[in-house]
């Protein structure tokens, strides 16, 4: 039996899904979409149930990716039952989606969640009356506490096993509209293609001139095979249910549509009229099951928003929240990161001694110690940071704060032509670009996502800031250092803004997405809802990146240690640096800087140690490396280096993440090229501008 879980965003769908499937779930992406796809198998009463958690959506039109995925699944996969989750505190808008589902799939069970939230805002609902009003089973649940979830599923199974589709109350349309719908129904009812869908739904969509009506699709890949034991039971990349267009059927009714249009009944007019009729119907039946108490006391959300969204206090509160997230993820997590590096070092030592014991050749021990473990270890040391950051991210998203941050940050984003939700992604990037890029998933419009993703690398992350501050401290001691650091950050922000406007031009976007965003009621997320996505995201990051990181570590090691036994400038990497000096020359860089820049690609924090080796500083202390550089470079050159270092490709992990999240090699390559060219141009301007102004 196939069951689909559908509902508005923030109704607690994932809580119910996690409770029902436990760890027996596959998480991946919908084919060709960046929308998360979650499926799981449940065994109940000798039945194998495939439960699919469809993305949170407000309607079943085909406007956002979430809507398209949800609609296509219901249309093409035809689930036996739809479990519709409804937020009791926001029943009217939630029922709008339910009415749309009922027109498409009559076997629906409603799960009424968040009754407690509704109570606190003075609404009490009568589930039995709601059942009567819609003629649909309603189960009351408290998803966060796990109450009623089993009953919800049992009811869905019962409805799924019914011999005949239950009779659902139809939405009454005004007579003028009803005539038109019936006229269309009469035309469609004898078409064989039409028999696979409910006639009324088909007629409505035909009147709305829905492009997908009349298309026949065929699934290309084998359907979801969760039974396949060879696949991992958890966190599988998901099944790529893919479709190809098989046939387009010429449907009757073109003349009818034409004549309606002449009367002024355009596609938009129909859409509006249908929506209006649905909302009208909801407000008509509402008094039967809803009692509105006159509550004078402001709700929890009201009181919290008074501070959190306050024009005066909102920003300090946001800075406080962000500071806490950054402190916990990127500073307090340092011992964990060190523990990982320490563990990697021990493992390397152990392996090396083992290799020496079997008298393996020296280059092999060097590969293991200096290549694989040093390279992979440098990236793994960031995993605790990323994991803690994801935990905070999930918490902020679930609790409802993230939408508030988008509200507050929207004004700034608007200046750059971006969406308010880009704000959090860009701010996250100061910690690490990888979670910043992954945080773009909250953006609904794929083009907005892409632009935000491409901007992220221009924001210096904590490791980059660390290297930069060490260099700044060496070249510009005292208060001048703070000014220099500030100027660098200002350059970065300015470039983010300019690039945002530039990307808008490059990325072809037909229709600018609207900033119409729900501000959900605050609630405390469950531990499971925070930890599960954290684990999943961290795991996904590792799974995606480890092969690339391993390969890159080995390549870098190869380049820097062959031919063996020669000084660094004679190795392949050194030769590459010398060869690339022609690029660095206009910026005043010598080959050493070029080598450091090339090596910084695997992970930028390695730049200092590379420079240390190149400048012949044995000590690993960042201060002494930077000190050695002061003898070899003028402050102007150092400043140019800092700017270029800040702006060029962030690191391998972020490139891999950009590729996986955008799903496009072309855009990833564009991003890399953009960063390289931009850093070169800005570096050139600063170097020559500085020289012209007489700086040294």
């Amino acid at each position, binding site marked *: 039996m196939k069951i689909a879980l559908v509902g508005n965003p923030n109704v607690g769908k994932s809580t119910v899904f996690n409770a029902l499937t436990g760890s027996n779930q596959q998480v991946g992406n919908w084919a060709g979409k960046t929308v998360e796809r979650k499926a799981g198998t449940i065994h109940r009463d000798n039945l194998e149930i495939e439960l699919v958690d469809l993305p949170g959506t407000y*309607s079943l039109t085909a406007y956002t990716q979430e809507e398209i995925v949800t609609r296509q699944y219901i249309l093409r996969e035809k689930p036996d039952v739809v479990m519709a989750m409804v937020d009791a505190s926001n029943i009217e808008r939630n029922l709008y989606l339910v009415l749309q589902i009922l027109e498409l799939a009559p076997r629906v069970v409603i799960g009424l969640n968040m009754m407690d939230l509704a109570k606190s805002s003075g609404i009490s609902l009568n589930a039995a009356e709601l059942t009567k009003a819609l003629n649909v089973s309603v189960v009351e649940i408290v998803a966060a506490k796990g109450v009623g979830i089993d009953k919800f599923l049992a009811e869905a199974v019962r409805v799924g096993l019914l011999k005949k589709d239950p009779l659902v109350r139809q939405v009454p349309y005004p007579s003028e509209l009803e005539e038109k719908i019936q006229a269309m129904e009469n035309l469609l009812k004898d078409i064989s293609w039409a028999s696979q869908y409910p006639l009324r739904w088909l007629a409505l969509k035909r009147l709305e001139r829905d492009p997908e009506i009349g298309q026949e699709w065929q699934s290309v890949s084998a359907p979801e095979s969760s039974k396949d034991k060879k696949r991992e039971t958890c966190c599988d990349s998901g099944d790529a249910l893919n479709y190809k267009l098989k046939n387009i059927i010429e449907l009757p009714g073109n003349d009818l549509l034409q004549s309606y249009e002449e009367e002024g009944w355009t596609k938009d007019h129909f859409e509006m009229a249908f929506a209006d009729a649905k909302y009208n119907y909801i407000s008509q039946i509402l008094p039967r099951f809803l009692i509105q108490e006159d509550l004078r006391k402001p709700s929890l959300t009201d009181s919290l928003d008074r501070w959190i969204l306050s024009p005066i206090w909102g920003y300090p509160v946001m800075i406080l929240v962000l500071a806490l997230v950054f402190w916990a993820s990127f500073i307090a997590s340092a011992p964990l990161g060190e523990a990982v590096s320490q563990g990697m070092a021990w493992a390397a030592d152990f392996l090396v001694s083992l290799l020496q014991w079997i008298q393996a050749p020296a280059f092999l021990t060097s590969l293991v110690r200096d290549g694989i473990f040093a390279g992979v270890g440098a990236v793994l040391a960031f995993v605790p940071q990323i994991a803690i950051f994801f935990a905070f991210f999930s918490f902020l998203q679930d609790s409802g704060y993230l939408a508030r941050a988008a509200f507050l940050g929207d004004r700034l984003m608007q200046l750059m032509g971006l969406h308010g939700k880009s704000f959090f992604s860009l701010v996250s990037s100061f910690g690490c670009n990888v979670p910043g890029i992954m945080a773009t998933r909250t953006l609904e419009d794929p083009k907005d996502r892409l632009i935000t993703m491409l901007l992220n690398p221009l924001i210096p992350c904590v490791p980059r800031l660390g290297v930069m501050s060490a260099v700044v401290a060496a070249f510009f001691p005292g208060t001048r250092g703070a000014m220099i650091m500030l100027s660098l950050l200002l350059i970065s922000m300015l470039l983010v803004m300019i690039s945002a406007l530039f990307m808008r031009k490059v990325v072809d976007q037909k229709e600018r997405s609207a900033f119409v965003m729900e501000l959900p009621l605050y609630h405390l997320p469950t531990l499971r809802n925070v930890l599960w996505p954290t684990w999943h995201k961290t795991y996904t990051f590792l799974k995606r990146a480890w092969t690339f990181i391993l390969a890159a570590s080995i390549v870098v090691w190869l380049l820097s240690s062959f031919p063996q036994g020669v000084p660094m400038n004679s190795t392949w990497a050194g030769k590459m640096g010398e060869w690339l000096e022609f690029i660095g020359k206009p910026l005043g860089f010598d080959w050493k800087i070029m080598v450091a820049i090339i090596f910084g690609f695997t992970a930028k924090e390695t730049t200092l140690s590379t420079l240390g080796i190149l400048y012949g500083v044995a000590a690993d202390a960042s201060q002494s490396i930077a000190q050695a550089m002061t003898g070899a470079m003028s402050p102007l050159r150092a400043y140019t280096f800092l700017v270029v270092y800040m702006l060029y490709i962030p690191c391998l992990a972020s490139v891999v993440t950009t590729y996986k999240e955008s799903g496009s090699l072309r855009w990833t390559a564009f991003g890399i090229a953009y960063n390289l060219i931009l850093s070169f141009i800005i570096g050139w301007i600063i170097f020559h501008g500085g020289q012209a102004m007489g700086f040294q």
Partner: protein
Amino acid sequence: MERSLGELKPGERACVERINGGGALRRRMMDMGIVPGVELEVVRCAPMGGPLQIRLKGYYLAMRRGECAKIVVSGEQHKAIEHTLASR
């Protein structure tokens, strides 16, 4: 008296008269429950021309001023009988 939603002050309520423009924005508003006859309340505005927080049907929505300008509202609740609950 016809005004756009963006002209309301925090704390003011009004009924939706019509939505200007079409396409995705209009559909999005429809999905969120902004249809003619619904009562909206401007709760607060973000500073410096930022978005507005709007309450309707018992929930909160954030919308930019540009989008609010497309929603024409009227002070009187002439559809009050039909929409009493929708405009809670």
